[in-house]
């Protein structure tokens, strides 16, 4: 019997991982909740285990996932991203059950998942940090510490919940008065949301770029980086478009950031694939933000420019192999852009379009085009999960070639049924600032016109709709 690996995820990333597992000549075991029963990842896997009606709670249920792995005879679990991927208790449960967790150790996840601990480890290793505090003292003492910090570093500052993440539990403070007003609210909200009222402060880097470095390490401590990514184009701290490399950096800057990332990973005794995130200030200085202890959505762009299959490498490392390449073997070339095609209405504050059925799905192909998706014509998008339908990643030798290819792909990408981010992206890549590579995290806020577009229903689809109606009614009621 073949070795089995369970994929503890859904959607496009489950398929991405299943493909790597099958390429390594292992069998892939999928899990699913009831709302995902029509999801394509079930069909692509070698077997699938139903774990409950969900929604989400069963994908998040450590016992059920471990049980599914044990029952199916899997020896390892790949967590993907989201769900249990950065939950140290899940990694530990795998370790306890004798299953291989494809990722770093539970200790590493725990240390790096706690922002305060992570900052302490990084500070000790001499990694540059945005000025910030540890957990503030309870009560009025904490407020006094906060006020002192504001006076020393100036405003704006960020007030963050220690247990928050993914853009949640963060508020921006512009003045001392606002700080006094917001501080108790932030604490009680953190208590309500995360059952932990710890908060800390960070100086705000105004209009920064978001630059991150893909790192990968084996158990012997061989740690290499796979270059940079620019993920500045975001909405409310959620990434929409990711680019590799961060091509506006000078070779010296790029080298400095990558080496810092490797040092950070080593300081945390990092194993397997991870991402070190930095804020890049307008003056060129960069600050450590966090380490994501998992596979990232945007790993595809790095794969495109390095030729290294990150997921395959992850599995091989977890199964006990050492890195087969050294830093000098990694030679990024060209440019790659990934766009997250979501079932959302950008003009309506990116409102999710779940519950709708995809009536037409026509995807582009050809040279330099990669698609990571899971939906198909006739698929009804479950309302209970995220809205990512497919990631379009394109490669090109130059930046402009890459943008040209992206435009061609978006023009030929037809998804009808739900509204999608496609027409918005079409607008975005025609923007002169984007084309010139001039963007930072404020890009969407400062480019309102990107939201002015018409939903693109092709003329022939409109006419076909009329033909269908004439057929259905037995006459053209608009001509009767």
């Amino acid at each position, binding site marked *: 019997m073949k070795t089995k690996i369970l994929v503890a995820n859904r959607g496009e990333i489950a398929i991405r991982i299943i493909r790597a597992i099958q390429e390594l000549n292992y069998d892939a075991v999928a899990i699913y909740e009831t709302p995902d029963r029509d999801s394509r990842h079930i069909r692509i896997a070698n077997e699938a285990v139903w774990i409950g009606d969900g929604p989400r709670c069963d994908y998040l249920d450590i016992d059920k996932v471990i049980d599914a792995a044990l029952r199916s005879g899997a020896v390892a679990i790949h967590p993907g991203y989201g769900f249990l991927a950065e939950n140290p208790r899940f990694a530990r449960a795998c370790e306890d059950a004798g299953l291989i967790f494809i990722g770093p150790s539970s200790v590493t996840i725990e240390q790096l998942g706690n922002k305060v601990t992570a900052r302490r480890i990084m500070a000790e290793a001499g990694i540059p940090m945005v000025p910030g505090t540890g957990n503030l003292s309870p009560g009025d003492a904490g407020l006094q510490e906060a006020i002192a910090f504001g006076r020393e570093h100036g405003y704006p500052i960020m007030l963050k919940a220690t247990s928050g993440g993914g853009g949640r539990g963060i508020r921006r403070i512009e003045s001392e008065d606002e700080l006094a007003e917001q501080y108790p609210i932030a604490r009680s909200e953190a208590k309500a949301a995360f059952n932990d009222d710890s908060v800390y402060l960070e100086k705000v880097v105004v209009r920064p770029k978001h630059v991150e470095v893909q790192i990968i390490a084996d158990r012997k401590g061989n740690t290499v980086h796979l270059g940079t990514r620019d993920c500045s184009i975001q909405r409310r701290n959620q990434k929409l478009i990711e680019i590799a490399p961060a091509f506006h950096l000078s070779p010296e800057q790029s080298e400095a950031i990558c080496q810092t990332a490797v040092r950070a990973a080593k300081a945390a005794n990092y194993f397997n694939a991870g991402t070190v995130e930095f804020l890049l200030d307008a003056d060129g200085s960069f600050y450590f933000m966090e380490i994501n202890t998992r596979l990232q959505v945007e790993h595809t762009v790095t794969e495109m420019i390095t030729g290294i299959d990150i997921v395959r490498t992850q599995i091989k490392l977890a199964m006990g192999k050492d890195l087969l390449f050294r830093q000098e073997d990694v030679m990024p070339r060209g440019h790659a852009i990934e766009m997250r095609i979501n079932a959302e209405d950008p003009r309506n504050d990116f409102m999710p379009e779940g519950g709708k059925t995809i009536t037409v799905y026509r995807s582009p192909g050809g040279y330099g085009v990669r698609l990571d998706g899971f939906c198909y014509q006739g698929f009804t998008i479950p309302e209970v999960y995220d809205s990512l339908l497919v990631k379009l990643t394109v490669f090109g030798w130059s930046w402009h070639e890459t943008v040209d290819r992206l435009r061609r792909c978006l023009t030929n990408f037809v998804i009808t049924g739900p509204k999608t981010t496609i027409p918005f992206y079409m607008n975005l890549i025609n923007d002169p600032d984007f084309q010139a590579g001039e963007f930072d995290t404020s890009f969407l806020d400062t480019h309102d016109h990107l939201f002015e577009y018409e939903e693109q229903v092709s*003329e*022939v689809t409109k006419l076909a709709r009329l033909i269908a109606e004439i057929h259905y009614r037995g006459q053209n009621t608009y001509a009767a």
Partner: protein
Amino acid sequence: MTRITQGMAPSEVLAILRQADGYYITNTTRDMSQSDYKNRILLHTDLLAAPAREAAGYFSLEITGGASVHVDILRKQVDPFLKLELLREKMPDTMFQTLCRGVNLFGYRPYPQNVIRLTVREFAKYVDVWRTFDFMNHVPNMQAVFEEVAKAGKINEPCICFSTGPEHTNEYYIGKVREILDVTGDEIILCIKNHGGLGTPRRIGELVNAIKQAYPDLVIHYHGHNTDGNDIGRITAAIENGATIVDASDHAFTGFYGPPPILTVIQTMKDLGKTAIGIDEEAVIATSDAIRDQRPHYAQFEAQIKGFLPTVQIHKLPGGAMGSSLEQASKGGFLDRMPDILHKELPRVQVELGNWWSVTPGSQILWTTAVSNVLEGDRYGNPSGDLKNLLLGKYGPFPFYRPEDWIYEKVFGSDWEKILEEEGGIMEIEDMDIEKERRTLTERLGSEPTEQQLVLYLQHPNDAVDFFKFEEQFGRAYVLPPSIFLRQGGFQLGETLVFRDDTGQEHIVEIGPAQQTDDGETNVYLNVDHDQQLFVFEPEQQEGCATVAQLSKEEIAKLARQGDIRAPFAGNLYGISVEVGQEVNEGDQLVVLEAMKMQTPVISEVSGTVSEIHAKVGQALQPGDRILTIEIPEE
């Protein structure tokens, strides 16, 4: 022997016409479409015919106006302006002609002066010859159009509407011509508009001759219909007595109530030694060859009764109304009453109401009144709002005599004299606040309308908005041939449809299966450019399930006296005159219903406050459907 082409100055055109040794032909395809195909001939067919029609060398092509502007947006889903633009591309030399109902423009009742002028200005960008009439031959009703056409540098072709009877003498018509010339000056073409195809060839010959005697330099354009099968005879008489232009159309599509075939005119006149100037006979034949195979797709719109109707000389319905009246009779289940309506009641009503001209909107008033008189049994007992307006002289003065007092008494009640005195006289219509309408349309569309969209909206507000929304949803559907657009009974499984979109790109649609799901939805699969697409249709709402069991007339009237206003008959809600919270008094107009193109106001029989409005403008109402509620204060 000069061909007249688009772009010539009106004075140049008139100079050529006055020296003509022979006659010119107008291809009245618009009238053919309206009279024999309920106005449904699609732009697709006109575009197929365009190259041959251009080569044929007509004086003009009547391709817009009449009811066609409305039907273009209502039933053909084509922008009337875009239609002219696309035809112009293929027909650079041929003058385009319209039929304009004067103050009623392309509709059924008078428009404000500023709307008339704006509309004429926009259409005059495409239309070279303006045939304008008034159903009462009341010249002031046409004046605004005359002025705007002249300003735009286009050709005015005022009409004298023609009919028969003791009052319709040569002297009367010559007097009308004088009245027109007094207003327009000499640089016009005069149209004898014989919309019913009335009179004998001899009568038409006499009339043309009499006008020519009085005004030798006046260019006469004879327009007729072939309802009795004898229009070739009238055309012949008209030309022989001095008419310079005549109307006919393509023989592949000629029917019974519209124009006769062009080729027959040419052949007949050739034998009499008269030449059709500028005409390429081969191209006339080629036009019919190009479109003949399209005709079967229009069969559903051809008249319910086939054959010529020489009884038109009795009932006098115009060609354009023949098809629609037969359709109404067929749908309303009273085809068997048609002999009574057409041959007895209609002639009687005509005489009783003044023996003026049975043409839009007068023909609709005569027809509706005659139908109501026969079906209800109570003559003039159910007068339409338009009949009332007519009797009050709102359309214009009666040309020959006023209807007798008993009709007024029947229509308006015992104090009819007071009503006539207070409300009588020509309708004074205030200018519309066009900028306000533009803002309303902007709101309804969600974007700034073009000037052309505004013009369409000012004429048919709800239908125009529906059309704009149709295009948004279904695209530019005028590209579809009648074999698709007018298909009856659905397509065959596996049938392949090929068409070009408005950019010229070719598409192929293959019909796939249609399946009903457990939820009652229907899934229709089409292969569109080789990709399967699914179209889902929700189950149809059972009509009438939300309304109460059918109420009788008495019950509706009783409810109205309690402030519960119901639709008294089937029709569309044309307008709402009140708002929620508004105080109304007995006699105030509440809403206006429209049925069979006639508007009828619903008048409050109580005083109180409007507490709720249930119906929406544009909604189709069945008798007894709720419209609004008036709360009556307790005594």
